């Protein structure tokens, strides 16, 4: 009997060990590339960190500004409608809500008193100036790859911003997630806290792209699925995940569920402008990533990110191949059996004038639904979020705008129209309910703002 217990015990131990090491092996975002890596100071292949050569002679603050954009500090450290970098953005998670912090140089409520060493500890190790641990909503496991020089250039830039008094909002987390001390264990397991090591088997361009995507842009924080401990599972690197109520799509080379069928130019355009004709435009968090971060990168850097993205192993996920043929011109054709007519009615009144019954917009390529991944996602997550929140992006060519319908339409209405849109223009119709939509609203919600945002819309009765 003892022997059996011993064997079972040993078996459990081996399985646990295997699971632990499998999990830990999943923490290196660049291990897929194989080959050998060297410390940055031993790398002979040229500069892969810092700013591009065009900016090499710029002053520290200017370089810091570029790198701050590259690391996209702004998107999370800004609450909608409030001052940039003053924090207060809500991360809604199954176990509670965390708020981002004020990283303006205000001495009481911001980071104005941070020394260089304290700033590096926060960026690389997730340790605040007072020694408390940050939650990994702050992507320090990605930023730990960033060089000290780059992190301190970012600090130099942030310290030129106007200090804004914005006290931290109280996190609302359930036990045991409210015990910051427990993160010590998490950090040992999931934050190697090592700087970027170039891969000698890859080109300089690839290494630059890897540095931009992993250390700076932290793409994996949204696009890589997480394991049970909420750490990135790089065994399925970039194969897509739901973050903050929006779906970050599969950006591996899988032809059906990923971006294997996109041309390099499409990927380049999508990254640098947030839009590629035939594939649609970025909205929600990716719209912010394009507007606050990627659109600031110089062309060589975006090309480097494309080269790196293209090298990531394809992982199939549960998304169907996108439909690239437009729907029929008449609303009467292209019907899907069993679909709620409410969705069609709402589409006719609120959507068809810009999106057309074919899905090919007569107004702008940004409004074309045909071929768009979100429309070809049978969960309709991002379609529903886009309907709720609208799109309001400023790009070099002007404004990209879609009204936010969340206030004027009920959860059932939004579910119906999202189901209709995915069925008519996509590969497979969604089956959202009003409850699903309510849940999506909750996941993406932000706390009431300190001030009502100034409405740019005309009064609408």
């Amino acid at each position, binding site marked *: 009997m003892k022997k059996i217990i011993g064997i079972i015990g040993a078996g459990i131990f081996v399985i646990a060990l295997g699971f632990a090491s499998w999990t830990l092996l999943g923490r290196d975002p660049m291990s897929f590339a194989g080959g050998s890596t060297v410390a940055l100071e031993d790398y002979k292949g040229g500069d892969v960190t810092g700013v591009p050569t065009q900016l090499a002679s710029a002053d520290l603050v200017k370089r810091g500004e570029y790198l701050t954009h590259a690391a996209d500090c702004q998107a999370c450290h800004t609450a909608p409608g409030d001052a940039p970098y003053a924090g207060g953005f809500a991360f809604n998670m199954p176990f509670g809500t965390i708020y981002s912090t004020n990283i303006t140089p205000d001495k009481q409520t911001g980071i104005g008193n941070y020394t260089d060493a304290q700033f590096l500890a926060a960026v690389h190790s997730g340790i605040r100036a007072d020694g408390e641990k940050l939650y990994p909503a702050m992507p320090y496991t990605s930023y730990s790859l960033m060089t000290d020089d780059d992190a301190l250039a970012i600090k130099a830039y942030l310290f030129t911003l106007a200090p804004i008094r914005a006290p931290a909002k109280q996190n609302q987390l359930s036990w045991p997630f409210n015990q910051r001390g427990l993160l010590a264990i998490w950090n040992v397991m999931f934050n190697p806290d090592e700087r970027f090591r170039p891969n000698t088997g890859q080109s300089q361009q690839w290494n630059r792209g890897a540095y931009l995507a992993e250390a700076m842009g932290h793409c994996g924080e949204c696009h890589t699925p997480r394991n049970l401990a909420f750490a990135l599972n790089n065994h399925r690197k970039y194969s897509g995940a739901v973050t903050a109520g929006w779906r970050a799509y599969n950006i591996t080379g899988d032809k059906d569920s990923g971006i294997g069928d996109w041309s390099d130019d499409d990927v380049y355009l999508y990254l640098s402008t947030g839009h590629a004709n035939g594939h649609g435009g970025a909205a929600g968090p990716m719209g912010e990533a394009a507007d606050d971060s990627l659109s600031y990168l110089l062309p060589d850097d975006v090309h480097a990110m494309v080269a790196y993205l293209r090298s990531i192993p394809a992982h199939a996920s549960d998304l169907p191949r996108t439909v690239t043929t437009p729907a029929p011109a008449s609303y*009467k054709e292209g019907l899907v059996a069993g679909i709620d007519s409410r969705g069609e009615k709402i589409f006719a009144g609120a959507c068809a*004038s810009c999106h057309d*019954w074919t899905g090919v917009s007569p*107004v702008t390529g940004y409004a074309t639904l045909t071929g768009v991944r979100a429309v070809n996602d049978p969960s309709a997550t991002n379609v529903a979020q886009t309907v709720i929140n609208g799109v309001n992006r400023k790009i070099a060519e002007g*404004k990209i*705008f879609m*009204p936010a319908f969340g206030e004027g339409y009920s959860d059932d209405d939004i579910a119906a129209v999202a189901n209709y849109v995915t069925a008519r223009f996509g590969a497979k119709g969604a089956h959202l309910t009003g409850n699903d939509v309510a849940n999506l609203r909750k996941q993406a919600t932000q706390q009431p703002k300190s001030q009502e945002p100034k409405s740019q*819309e*005309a009064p*609408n009765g």
Partner: protein
Amino acid sequence: MLTLTINGQSRQVDAPADMPLLWVLRDHLNLVGTKYGCGIAQCGVCTVHVGGKPVRSCQLTVGDVGTRAVVTIEGIGTTPNGAKVQQAWMEDTVPQCGYCQAGQIMSATALLDSNPHPDDSDIDAAMAGNLCRCGTYIRIRRAIKNAAAKSA
């Protein structure tokens, strides 16, 4: 300088490419028959035809018009269906306050261009994005059928 084809005429416009077509029509070309309503493509009063399709001109930037021909309420009466729709509109005294009616006529004409004999549900699907606060919907539907009958 942009060159647009509006109501069959070539027009030169000195406007930034991101200016909505509606602004260009009203403020640069003094074609004020097309109205401004909600500004977010939800009411339909600013509807014009671009490349033969009904488009909300408050959302279409002038730079995106390209070579597509633009027809506005000022020019729609010279098209066969536009003339029939305007005639039917008068016969059925459709407008009440009239503010939305330029957009209604543009959408109705586009409907007849693609579907010469629409039934009620066709009319609903095509006209649902054109709001009328006076509630002239019943007369609009009747006038569209009246105009369609004139095609014969």
